[in-house]
């Protein structure tokens, strides 16, 4: 007796199969659409973060305590034992300085980057950006923008003048051994770390250590783990969210924008569900009138309507989840190639990818459930208020 309304609800669902299927289909399709759009936006962001962190930043970086706020030649990491933690996949040291570059009678301000060739290639995608020539221990590799502006090519010389860490004027001439692709306007000059350290009189000191881990999602916890493992308060160990704060903030802003457009999709889905649910209940006004006339308590009828909608929505969500999972998985695995690559935060990304995660299913499920329950409450109350006689006359 207690669960009578549940049995009633089940019976109601299966009594009018066509009606239930139509309502259920609206809900399932709504769920599918929501899940897919959330999946694609999540997937695209993780694609951007992935490309971005692999491009240069890495997942975690180590600096001298206030290097990030005010970079300075003297704020170096003198000696540090990088621990071997299970989640770390690779790390690479770097040296930075700004310098005046001469070449072919042109003078330009550039940033000099000293990199450990082997480690850098294992950590980032720098090697893949090489468009001409090679990286070498003695030569300089410059960005295409710099090469274009200075009108120099592989084989020419580049003269760098900067400030040495011992107070001397760092000045030297380097053969250009390669050119890397870059975003428009990035004036970078890569040297091998040993060459850069000698050029800047830095000895074995470095400015930055970039660490790659098995997942950027856990960068914050990993950074904490590394911090504890090294235990040196003079070092600043931060995840990419802190290191690339402007990129991260821009992304958070963008995600906010994404939720605005997602909420429009949600609204459309909710309206669809509202329509079907409303029809489903109003169609049976007469039937509820009869139940009422027979002495069924209004509370029972109310519970009946809500339970029926709840069951129908649950079944529809489960049904909708199957194609949603397949579609998201497929897009996560293979993606859709974009005809025009889109740039975000200096990263070009060329495939739309989806993601399979808890959010991708939980958010649409909660949303469709809430919508269908909320929209069924009002017609249910409406029926209860209607006198039985009037309800029975309803066609």
């Amino acid at each position, binding site marked *: 007796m207690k669960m009578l309304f549940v049995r009633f609800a089940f019976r109601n669902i299966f009594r009018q199969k066509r009606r239930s299927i139509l309502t259920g289909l609206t809900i399932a399709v709504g769920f599918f659409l929501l899940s897919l759009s959330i999946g694609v936006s999540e997937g695209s962001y993780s694609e951007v973060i992935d490309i971005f962190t692999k491009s240069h930043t890495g997942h975690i970086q180590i600096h001298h305590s206030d290097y990030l706020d005010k970079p300075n030649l*003297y704020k170096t990491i003198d000696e540090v034992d990088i621990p071997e933690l299970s989640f770390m996949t690779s790390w690479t040291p770097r040296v930075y300085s700004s310098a005046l570059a*001469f070449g072919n009678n042109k003078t330009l301000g550039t940033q000099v980057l000293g990199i450990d060739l082997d480690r850098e290639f294992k950590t980032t995608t720098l090697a893949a950006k090489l468009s001409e020539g090679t990286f070498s221990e003695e030569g300089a590799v410059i960005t295409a923008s710099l090469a274009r502006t200075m009108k120099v090519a592989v084989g020419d010389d580049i*003269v760098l*003048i900067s*400030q040495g*860490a*011992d*107070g*001397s*004027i760092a*000045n*030297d*001439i380097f053969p250009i051994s390669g050119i890397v692709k870059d975003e428009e306007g990035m004036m970078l000059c890569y040297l091998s770390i040993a060459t850069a350290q000698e050029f800047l*009189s830095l000895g074995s000191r470095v400015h930055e250590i970039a660490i790659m881990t098995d997942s950027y999602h856990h960068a914050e916890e990993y950074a904490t783990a590394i911090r504890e493992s090294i235990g040196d308060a003079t070092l600043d160990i931060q995840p990419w969210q802190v290191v690339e704060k402007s990129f991260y903030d821009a992304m958070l802003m963008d995600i906010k924008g994404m939720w605005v457009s997602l909420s429009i999709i949600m609204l459309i889905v909710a309206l669809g569900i509202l329509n079907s649910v409303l029809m489903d209940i109003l169609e049976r006004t007469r039937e509820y009138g009869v139940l009422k006339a027979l002495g069924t308590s209004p509370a029972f009828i109310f519970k009946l309507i809500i339970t029926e909608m709840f069951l129908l929505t649950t079944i529809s969500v489960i049904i909708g989840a199957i194609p949603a999972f397949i579609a998201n998985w497929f897009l996560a695995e293979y993606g859709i190639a974009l005809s025009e690559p889109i740039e975000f935060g200096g990263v070009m990304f060329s495939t739309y990818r989806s993601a399979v995660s808890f959010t991708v299913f939980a958010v649409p499920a909660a949303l469709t459930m809430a919508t269908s329950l909320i929209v069924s409450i009002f017609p249910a109350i409406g029926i209860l208020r209607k006198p039985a006689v009037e309800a029975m006359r309803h066609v």
Partner: protein
Amino acid sequence: MKFVKALIFSMCVFGTAYGADIDNIVERIDTLFRSDYSEATVSMMITTPHWKRTLEMDVWSRGMDDTFITITSPKKDRGITTLRKGNEMWNYFPKIDKVIKVPPSMMMGSWMGSDFTNDDLVRESSLLDDYDASFVEDAALADSLIMISLVPREGTVSLWGEIRLLVRREDSMPLEQVYYDEHGAKIRVLTLSDIKELGGKRIPTVLTMISLIKDNNTTVIRYHDATFGEKVPDDTFTLRNLRKKQ
């Protein structure tokens, strides 16, 4: 009335004598390390919180305007030369074989990372030409010392709002120069010490510059050897020599 006239007259005379006196002292300081020609071997020790290094160099000068400096040590910087001719200045870097002109805007910039500006190093500024000098009365000052205040003349481009010189009365030997900015804040202090006979001239052979704004960065210039008045070939002060000199 006569008395007043006499007083004014005597003041004028006294004033002129006083004025000539101060000009003499300033001019003496201006030419202290110079002559028609001079040649000197100098070391420069620079100490900052981040690094410390010593440069050895040879310096030639002609009159008040032309200077030629070549660094002889350390090895890394050997052959870097600086030429100043009149109002222009160039640095030459042998490693990259480049002559770089120091723009006028950089004349007050640091020379080779020291606390001396490009201008200090090559000319020690013409205090007489560019500044108005006056005596400073200071009761606390010992009788054997004179304090002179130098304020840039109108039209003089200077980093300093005022320079105060502490001079020994008996031989007009400068002992200290304090540099103030235009707001009257002390920026740096130059102490001149170890007065010795060098190349036929009595000069302070150790110049210690302490920057009060840059974490007490210190630069000590030490004169090891000097000759004054011996002619230096005129082609020393040429751009060609800048490249040639090793």
